[in-house]
């Protein structure tokens, strides 16, 4: 399994590049990852990321956008603006979590 190094921080990823060990993530690392995809993390980005991590700690699964809205209270429209393009995947990656599995 590949291991990535970014600014001296090392973390394991799957073939696609998603984290395989959530404890190797840190908020500083998230900021560095975000800069790779031209995102500047604001408090709202971080709030969504923290929700995904807290939710994953309980359920063991990466939340979908629908779940982030229903359970976390983050409107999906806002999430799409915060993480443009492949929203669900970007959010999961920046949160140091696996790619979401659920369809909805």
């Amino acid at each position: 399994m590949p291991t990535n190094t970014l600014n001296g921080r090392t973390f394991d990823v799957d073939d696609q590049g998603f984290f395989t060990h959530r404890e190797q993530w840190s908020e500083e690392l998230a900021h560095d990852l975000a800069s790779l995809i031209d995102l500047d993390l604001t408090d709202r980005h971080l709030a969504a990321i923290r929700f995904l991590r807290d939710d994953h700690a309980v359920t063991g699964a990466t939340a979908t956008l629908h779940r982030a809205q229903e359970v976390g209270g983050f409107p999906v429209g806002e999430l799409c603006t915060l993480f443009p393009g492949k929203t669900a995947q970007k959010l999961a990656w920046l949160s140091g979590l696996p790619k979401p599995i659920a369809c909805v």
Partner: protein
Amino acid sequence: MEIPAGFVMPDFGNTPAATGRRKMAFICSKGNLDMAYPALIMGNAALGEGVDVHIFFTFWGLDIINIKTNYRLKFTMAGNTAMHMPELARVRPGLEHVGIPQALGNVPGMTSMATAMMKRQMKDLGIPEVPQFLDLLQDLGAHMYACRLTFDMMKLNEYDLHPGVEGVINAADFIGISEGAQIVFI
């Protein structure tokens, strides 16, 4: 920041500029509950992947966006030879794979029962009901349209359409809108 050499990261595609974005168009022509979900689920997934989504509702598919009907779409066993009941495994292992006899589908009350069962299964999976699903798609930026011809044929009213529906358009309009899209007919 530059991506370091040997760094493995997901392919997020190029910048989400309007140009070169992938585009999908769904045509919903059926009004049964089980035929409403495919486009809603795939459209939702596509939007989450940054794909432009257009959905054209025509014929019985109009029931999906008509707020007088879309909360009570039904699922029928009649004509569906692939109807199984997972619960029957508790009666005798293997029964869950056996098709329900077709005649049962016509017994009064069976459609309501099958509909309730499907709704419960969907709820257990965290899938929203059809009206809430349309809200979700609207929030995600889906473009939804009603078919002019069938809208007139069924004597529908615009104020009965879900607010996410952008308009009642004709076939030629949809052909124009769906230019360059991958089309899924349901």
